[in-house]
């Protein structure tokens, strides 16, 4: 079985991982309540999608 011949330095590990960072989701603005929301989804804050209230969003009381 193939085995590693030499140990990796920490720098090598770090350099390899330099490209592994996660990107932020791009968010769009809800036209109804102007919160940031995921595009192509009903707004979780106000329940609107395409100009119509489609979800029951419970108000915190």
């Amino acid at each position, binding site marked *: 079985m193939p085995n590693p011949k030499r140990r990796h330095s920490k720098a090598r590990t770090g350099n390899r991982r330099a490209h592994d960072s996660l990107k932020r989701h791009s968010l769009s603005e809800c036209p109804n309540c102007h919160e940031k929301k995921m595009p*192509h*989804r*009903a707004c979780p804050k106000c329940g609107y999608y395409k100009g*119509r209230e*489609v979800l*029951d969003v*419970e108000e915190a*009381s």
Partner: protein
Amino acid sequence: MRHKESGWRLGRNTAHRRSLLRNLVTSLIVEERIETTLPKAKALRPQVEKMITLGKRGDLWARRQAAAYLMTREAVTKLFDTVAPRFGDRNGGYLRIVRTGWQRGDGTDKAFVELLGSEKLQEEKRQKRAEVRAKRAAEAKKALEEAEAQAQTEGGAPPSEPAEGEETKQ
């Protein structure tokens, strides 16, 4: 190579999948809106459209074919009498799928599927749900106030407090 991988298997064998889809289609025709995961919603669409096509044909053989797929007689009646006639001038695209969020546990996309033209019905259902919610909230508030009043009567000086508690109740 991504060959021969079309469609949605939904992690089920053929019988289980067919059963699931029949149930979903029946529910959708009866309720006009259902909430599922996004893959199920997408797998559901061709089946529903086939049923509506049968409904538009409207003859006895079509009715029997629909009855063989749908789970309840009620759904067949509704499909032929109220759902299919609505889509007379439309060739496909009878459904709307809206993504609503994520499922706890496995993070799957959740969505609802609704028949086009059911917006008014949905709005009525929503209003009804809101009324029920408001009623329940009012009851909870009342119960809380009563409990508080009782706690006051029990916690305070016993001889003078009961009358006060009743006053606050009114």
